[in-house]
């Protein structure tokens, strides 16, 4: 099983790669041909989209999803896959799925820490959340997971969510 993590200057590439390596996956560089492509993301939406476009990764990801090949978006990676995000004064996303990301309105922001999604707790670190008809799981009323065709997105960080996160990534691998 070959996993390719989009490296576009986002800080957490290594954490994501290490998580997949712990599961026995092989890591590759070719986003187009890997069994599973991962769009990680921390940082700001505008600079992340600019970096994705500068590297041509936006086009590769759109083609991959159109061809029915699995892409996993994590945190900002999920938000960038939407049509639009409110962050940085409004940024157009990849449009891999319908919907937008809006700033969190309640509680302390950023929303940092472990919160339940179904039976397990996962680690969240975000200031924006998705609004989309493609949501498949929620955490405290916020979208935690989306699925649209061959795109799966999670608002939490499975690579930092201990044993539960490892099991989540293992299920992604089994679908690839």
């Amino acid at each position, binding site marked *: 099983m070959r996993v390719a993590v989009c490296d576009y200057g986002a800080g*957490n590439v290594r954490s994501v790669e290490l998580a997949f390596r712990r599961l026995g996956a092989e890591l590759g560089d070719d986003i187009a041909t890997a069994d599973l492509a991962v769009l990680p993301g921390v*940082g700001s939406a505008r600079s992340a989209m600019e970096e994705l476009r500068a590297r041509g990764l936006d086009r590769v990801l759109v083609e991959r999803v159109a061809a029915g090949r699995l892409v996993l978006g994590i945190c900002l990676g999920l938000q960038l896959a939407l049509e639009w995000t409110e962050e940085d004064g409004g940024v157009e996303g990849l449009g891999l799925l319908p919907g937008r990301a809006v700033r969190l309105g309640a509680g*302390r922001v*950023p929303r*940092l820490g*472990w919160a339940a999604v179904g039976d397990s707790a996962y680690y969240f670190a975000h*200031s924006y959340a998705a609004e989309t008809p493609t949501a498949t799981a929620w955490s405290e009323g916020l979208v935690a997971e989306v699925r649209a065709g061959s795109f799966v997105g999670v608002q939490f960080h499975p690579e930092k969510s*201990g044993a539960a996160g490892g099991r989540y990534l293992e299920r992604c691998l089994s679908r690839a």
Partner: protein
Amino acid sequence: MPLPRLIPCLDVAGSRVVKGVRFQGLRDVGDPVELGAAYSESGADELVFLDVKATLEGRRTLVEVVRRVAERLAIPFTVGGGVRSVADAEQLLRAGADRVALNSAALERPALVTEIAERLGAQAVVVAIDAAGGRVRSRAASAATSRGAVEWAQEAEARGAGEILLTSIDADGTRAGYDLVLTAAVSAAVSIPVIASGGAGKAAHVAAALEVAQAALLASIVHEDPAGLTRLRAELRGLGVTLRDAA
């Protein structure tokens, strides 16, 4: 709201974990990766690694420690001590850290908070505040500043910080309880999460801190015995604190 977090803190000097009382008298208490792993297995929600010497030579060692910790652990961790630039922060995050904690460098040049937040996101920037008598101190608590802790926390938030790590120098290492008055004042003044730090001696102290802060930093209370974290978690649950099921 996410669950309250228990965050063991590992003070690092070179490649070893050390502990002092009121910032003095450092003694060696173990290997950062092994201790980090033991805490993770005992149910730590996050870890904080603070480079208490933060020398230029120590920086390379610190990045190597971060790389080894990230290989071993799948929980979030923050690294602080000597972070002075966006490049320093990026290097630590690329090595596998989730957040950097800024202290003296942010006091000297507050714009650094904004620069790192714009590049790496607010969630990556923790402003660490060491306070004595409600006043901020810098350089590992050795130097006075003109700032009040509440006012500096508010400015840090306005400049883009995603979290405040508030250490009471008066309480640090005493095991006599967190400085609840200071913590509550800072927590009420900002809308970003606050980590209470300094003074944990028993479960009731931690439970009280979690009433006013979103997370509690743990040092003396668990250092010599990571299994103590398992017992602490059980005691906290007995006191009615809802914690993550780490299995």
